[in-house]
């Protein structure tokens, strides 16, 4: 069965510092991969997605993610974090049959001034 692991439950970074959120998936083939962000009390906003092609994908708000097949990973990065990036981040995969997403447990990001 497909699964997604986000090993970090909570990360705190200083404003202006770089960020990397980890995501590992378990799936027999190459899945479709997503990162979503959720601000407190709100729905999920799509940051970026990977279906095929260039393994480094650019998203909104200055985020990027890199797909590494050998490591079954799809880590999210941002070179300089802003206070407004404080939120919860979810990695998700889908095998593509119905588009049903399987989510990781999420990583909560706190930003220190």
């Amino acid at each position, binding site marked *: 069965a497909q699964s997604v692991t986000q090993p970090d439950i909570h990360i705190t970074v200083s404003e202006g510092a770089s960020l990397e959120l980890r995501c590992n998936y378990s799936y027999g083939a190459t899945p479709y991969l997503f990162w979503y962000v959720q601000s407190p009390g709100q729905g999920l906003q*799509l940051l970026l*997605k990977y279906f095929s092609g260039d393994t480094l994908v650019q998203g909104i708000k200055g985020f990027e993610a890199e797909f590494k097949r050998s490591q079954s990973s799809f880590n999210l990065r941002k070179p300089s974090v802003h206070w407004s990036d404080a939120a919860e981040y*979810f990695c998700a995969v889908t095998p593509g049959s119905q588009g049903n997403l399987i989510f990781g*447990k999420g990583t909560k990001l706190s930003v220190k001034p």
Partner: protein
Amino acid sequence: SQTIHQWPATLVQPVGSPLSLECTVEGTSNPNLYWYRQAAGRGLQLLFYSVGIGQISSEVPQNLSASRPQDRQFILSSKKLLLSDSGFYLCAWSVLGRNTIYFGEGSWLTVV
């Protein structure tokens, strides 16, 4: 452009009372529709999805049901709420045949 609306945003209901959460999508036809629940500490769980009017698939047996009376309308219901039904409910949609899912703003349900 496509938009998704979900209501009510917040709901406090007593145990044993009924539930109806509604979701509509605008700007697209024949979307796939989804209901997810986000309970504290448990991540996001797919409850139901629908590929067309009257076609509902349930992912998890539970106290809830879903209906799709119109192409772009998806309703989550319960006849008698349980305390364990409390959580954040998210409606979502995707284009038929595509793999990107877009979420509504969610509905907070507290069962007391």
